[in-house]
């Protein structure tokens, strides 16, 4: 069923048991983003050490796609340099814009490739991107 390409098992697993959820006290910056069309919200804490994403923690309310995406993103980016994080970020963006025509680079995106199906549902792309946009915003702010 078409739906299964959207709600891959990996996504539902992350949704039910999200990683890095719960804001840690140790942070360099906190950002709050929301999706005004559906009301989903995320608060994201970012900690930086020696040019690396040393920690991400987050909290929020949202649909399975947005919450699973925050979980997967945290897994992917923690421990990466900002340069590496940016490559992953761009790869995820590209996947989201692929309209279902890309499977994603699993070596880069790991569990993130499960979101390939989301790109066929235009209304859900912004769900998948909520946490990524929050991260990007936090990263820019922390650089300044």
């Amino acid at each position: 069923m078409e739906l299964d390409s959207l709600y891959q098992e990996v996504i539902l697993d992350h949704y039910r048991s999200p990683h890095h959820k719960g804001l840690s006290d140790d942070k360099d910056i906190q950002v709050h983003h929301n999706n005004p069309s559906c009301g989903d919200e995320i608060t994201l804490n970012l900690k930086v050490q020696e040019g690396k994403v040393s920690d991400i923690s987050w909290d929020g309310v949202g649909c399975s796609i947005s919450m699973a995406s925050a979980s997967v993103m945290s897994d992917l980016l923690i421990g990466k340099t900002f340069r590496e994080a940016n490559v992953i970020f761009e790869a995820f963006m590209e996947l989201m814009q692929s309209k279902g025509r890309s499977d994603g680079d699993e070596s880069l995106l790991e569990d993130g490739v499960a979101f390939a199906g989301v790109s066929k549902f235009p209304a859900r792309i912004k769900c998948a991107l909520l946490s990524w946009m929050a991260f990007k915003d936090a990263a820019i702010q922390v650089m300044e």
Partner: protein
Amino acid sequence: MNLDLSEYKKDFPIFQRKVRGGNSLVYLDSAATSQKPTAVIEAESNFYRTINAAVHRGAHLLAEEASDAFEMSRSNVASFIGADSSEVVFTKSATESLNIIAYSLGNPDSRINIKSGDQIVVTEMEHHANLIPWQQLAKRTGASLSWLSFTEDGRIDLSNIKDVINSKTKIVAVTHQSNVFGTILPIDEISKAARAVGALVVLDACQSAPHFPINVKELDVDFLAFSGHKTLGPTGIGVLWGKHQLLEKLEPVVFGGSMVDSVTMTGATWASAPRKFEAGVPNMAQAVGLSAAIDYLRSIGLNNIAEYEHELTKYLLEGLASMSGIKVIGPLDLKDRGGVISFTVDGVHPHDVGQVLDQYGIAVRTGHHCAWPLMRKLKIAGTTRASFHLYNNREDIKQLIDGIEKVKSYFKVAK
């Protein structure tokens, strides 16, 4: 079912299409926008095909015919709400209608206007369109904004109405029917409180005018707004009604052609209402389409539509009550309640509920429904909302109930 309106569904061409997965369309999103019968679509296109010309400016036959059709539409809208033609302003949407009132009341040149220290009252269940314009008016003028709250089951809380609507209150702006709860508000009680302190009453009739008979005189309000597109009419048209003697006291808001009495390089004076509120070449084809929508609604009878939707509402509320893990957000009983039913599914986010339903051709709305403060107060992210119009039937509701069961099993929510 006592009343059967099923013969009318065939008048709506959209139901001939198939949606995702080859399913028939089960459209349960009429509170967002209604579908259009052929009569409306053709009224709009026939305007273009036969009499299209700029109204009010013409020395030629088409301009005359277009002006006639436009003004006939105005009378038709007026009689639909029990008003006089000179009191009906065509706008682009209910949102614009409400903004026009707020801007005009904020203009110090209007002979009634809001000043620093005045108070504006809304409710905590307003749609953003009947909240933010008032927030902004308060901000511009130094007035304050207060609100009536709501009870657990989504009814307006009038327990402190005498405190909230007080001697400082100049405007009370409320919705006629909540677009989240489906609750119909007791406008008479609210008007009475407003009258007691000399405040104006602005009614957001977006969810009422399309579904049951309304009469501005009986409602005893001062201004009223509704949208064409929720009333089986075209997009791009709304209605602003105001008592004539009030409209005459108000300054216009949008400036341009056809709304003036005289113009020089240094200043201008205005035509009388409603003309002064309709600058520019208006949305003529849409006005004519809205008029056709009103004819269509009246040919069925607003009372019949209300009764029919009431039965559908009863049926859905009963269906939801029989399911586990479903919470209706709004009144569970049928008293003063329209065909808008919001609910949550335990363990599944509304967006995911909507997505699964969509897979089966069922179109519902999910989220905060432009009533974010209401959601905040309830501490929920949003709801799934089913809303009706006359083209819905029991089968649609059965499909929705079955669909919700599929949602629960898809997301492995305990039965």
